[in-house]
């Protein structure tokens, strides 16, 4: 079968649409699933997908390289060619802290879920809603 389309764009579109679908599925998980643990799992997947989308903003079509210089005494020509091929380091720096801080906040949510179970005896939001006090 002859494919008369831009294959690179086709594959890139598959990845983009998959990422959007992942965001949609995890949003469904956060909003519609009754169990708090399932909500936490969906929330982490949603955070990860959002972070990946942020990285994707700074991506540059191959041939490209990570934003790390391979020499510690660069000449001006090397710096010039480096800035022409390296990807955007700013989203990576922001996501780097977001991943670790997000994990710490997730751990706080896990502790709160544990406390909810100790007080109510269940992690099902429908049953927690029915219990008064």
């Amino acid at each position: 079968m002859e494919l008369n389309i831009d294959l690179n764009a086709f594959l890139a579109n598959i990845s983009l649409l998959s990422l959007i679908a992942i965001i949609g599925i995890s949003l469904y998980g956060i909003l519609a699933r009754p169990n708090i643990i399932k909500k936490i799992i969906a929330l982490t997947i949603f955070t990860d997908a959002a972070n990946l989308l942020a990285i994707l903003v700074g991506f540059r079509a191959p041939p490209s390289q990570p934003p790390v210089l391979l020499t510690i005494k660069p000449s001006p020509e090397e710096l010039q060619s480096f800035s022409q091929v390296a990807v955007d380091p700013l989203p990576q720096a922001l996501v780097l802290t977001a991943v670790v801080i997000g994990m710490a906040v997730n751990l706080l949510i896990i502790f709160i879920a544990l406390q909810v179970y100790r007080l109510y005896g269940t992690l099902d939001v429908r049953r927690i809603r029915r219990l008064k006090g």
Partner: protein
Amino acid sequence: MRKELIVATSLTVTIIVLAYVITLGSGLGPLFNGIRPLAEVYLRTTLNPSQPSFTAMSPEGVTAIVWDYRGLDTLFETAVFYLAIIGAIAIYRGVSEKVRLNGAGVGLSMIVKVVTKVLIPINIAIATSIALHGHLTPGGGFQAGAAMAVIPMILIIAFSRYLLLDLKISKEVALAFRSIGLAGIALTAFVPILIGLLSGVNAYIMQNQLKADASFSLPAYLGDALVSGSLILYNISEYLAVTFGFSMIFLLLSIEEDIVKEQMRGDGVEH
């Protein structure tokens, strides 16, 4: 299970067909064909001795942005990290991890324990090298802390949490090491101002290399080795803070539920 597989397959096929249809038109336009001008500034100045008032003196663009160009952001992110872990500890207030259950703490089989003992030194070496080379190669304080925080978790699962208690790694010890890390970050942030005040030159908070109106700069080279001024200090401090922050959480999370309930109930009767 079969229903889920059918739905997953049809989802994949839908996405591939949708991508094909989108590509048949003009598509989403040219993808990934360049970066923003700001990014080029960062890439050109991350290690550029010919522009001393803009460079961060580190070949690693990401670490340079995390701790130099946008250092204050990271400082406050670390504050959020601190507060999240303090919040988790506050939920466990009054619960001591030193109480032991009879008969518990056997751990997994001999094979797992021996393999763990072999792997732990390798893991420590990798994490430390990630932290110490954070300004030269991909890596840094956050990455090293995350890699190191796996160790207490593996120890708890393979040997039970009583091993950490026998090694004298309690909640208080972890809190102390974490405070050392945070104090290191704060100190490194204030060192330029202190030196500036003492020697009478202009200096800013979290300054690394010299700026146009502040001629103070931390040493970029230690002998022949490139240390990138404050970056290596920040990386080591953040390494300590992240490692022991997560360790503390795991110490608390591994306490048996019976002990926690007993102590929390005891608390309620007292007050």
